[in-house]
């Protein structure tokens, strides 16, 4: 999955826009999405779908599959929110909160009104904010997020670690994938027990490879005159676009007004 998001973002059609613009746009929508009425939240989610699928040309099928992720977490939590339990003798005390209820032995099991409200609130909010998150994931390459973090004066150690980790994650992931593929070709994952054993082997091998890469890479760094800090330079090739900036600003203003009206009521 991670290869998927990471390779999609490099081919998205909004890549030429400055990352600061896209990130501040997403940040504004994060705030609006938290504070506003459900219908405004719905509008944000829809509008972002247009940006992501329409403008950035992320395949709709993949975007829909990504949206299923928050949905499944929501579905997992729904029973906890919705179901209420109380002693059978106290059932009348909770009556205002009951949609449907049943007495089973000593307990009273019911569907909670408040739980239903919470669940629907969470649903709208999660969908909206996840759309904002996906807008960042699918249109701003990780490298450019790092540039912005540097500009925002994040501790340099943190940015350096993030940059190195990004590079190493793919290196180790490739090794892990290759090891697992090789094991599969030798019948490694065909039953539960074999599976656990094979996995233990992969993890152990991965530790060795990691230590080995450490030795090799530190030689590689030394040969390039490592000074203790990982400084790099990059050219800026971004072009702001009037058309997209205007749509973003006007849209956000409209949403802010709508939220204002909602609170004024």
């Amino acid at each position, binding site marked *: 999955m*991670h290869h998927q998001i990471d390779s999609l973002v490099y081919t998205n059609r909004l890549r030429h826009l400055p990352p600061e613009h896209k990130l501040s746009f997403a940040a504004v929508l994060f705030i609006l999405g938290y504070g506003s009425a459900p219908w405004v939240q719905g509008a944000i989610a829809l509008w972002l779908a247009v940006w992501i699928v329409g403008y950035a040309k992320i395949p709709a099928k993949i975007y829909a599959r990504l949206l299923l992720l928050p949905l499944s977490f929501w579905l997992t939590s729904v029973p906890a929110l919705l179901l209420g339990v109380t002693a059978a003798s106290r059932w009348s005390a909770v009556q205002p909160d009951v949609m449907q209820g049943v007495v089973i032995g000593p307990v009273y099991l019911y569907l909670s009104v408040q*739980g239903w409200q919470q669940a629907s609130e969470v649903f709208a909010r999660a969908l*909206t904010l996840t759309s904002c998150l996906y807008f960042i994931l699918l249109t701003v390459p990780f490298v450019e997020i790092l540039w912005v973090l540097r500009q925002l004066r994040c501790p340099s150690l943190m940015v350096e670690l993030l940059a190195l980790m990004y590079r*190493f994650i793919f290196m180790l992931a490739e090794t892990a994938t290759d090891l697992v593929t090789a094991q599969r070709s030798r019948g490694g994952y065909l039953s539960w027990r074999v599976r656990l054993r094979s996995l233990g082997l992969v993890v152990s091998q*991965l530790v060795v490879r990691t230590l080995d890469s450490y030795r090799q890479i530190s030689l590689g760094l030394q040969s390039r005159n490592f000074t203790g800090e*990982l400084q790099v330079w990059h050219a800026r090739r971004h072009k702001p676009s009037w058309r997209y900036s205007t749509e973003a600003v006007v849209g956000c203003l409209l949403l802010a007004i709508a939220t204002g009206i909602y609170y004024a009521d």
Partner: protein
Amino acid sequence: MKLNPRILQLVAMAALSLYLVVGVAPPAQAMHIMEGFLPVGWAVFWWIVSLPFFILGLRSLARIARENPELKLLLALAGAFSFVLSALKIPSVTGSCSHPTGTGLGAVLFGPSVMTVLGSLVLIFQAVLLAHGGLTTLGANVFSMAIVGPWVAYGVYRLFANSDKQKLAVFLAAALGGLVTYIVTSIQLALAFPAASGGFVAAFVKFAGIFALTQIPLAISEGLLTVLVWNWLQSY
């Protein structure tokens, strides 16, 4: 007999919930609170709680890195390693697959304050590359997975390490580290969504009950796997 349809309804619902818990949600995510799930107050609260831990960890790391710059490579590799581990699927007793977080092993090897930083960075990557977790809920996730988990794992390990039962210490560190992470997640959800009757306690019992199905076997699997790797590391 009048209750019959209601009972049927409830049985159907219970079955549905069970299906949803065991079948639908990839448990890998059940540990991460998804983007937008927490109300704004709680999201901010957990950010404020986690940030000092992160900054303190980063400070102590910076001190080490200044003395020995190449350590940065090792730390980044360790972080990348635990990310890759979390993306590997491990077989769990319930039949569903999820991820070993490697926090336990990391805490034992590197110490909990280093793990706080590495764990937080791994969580950022999980949000950005895998869409697991989120940015507003990052504070809450960092608290449960990169602060409480490692500290408990480390504490448990130190407690048992002297009793020359290293393996048991490692198993307990990894398993309890995983377990406490899931309990904290349940607490966080219960705080954000108290039940109408019974409030926080009732909500906690419900959330903990739902996640227990997947998380307890997972904690045990992770403990076992960590012991396997630990043994192997010592023979290397």
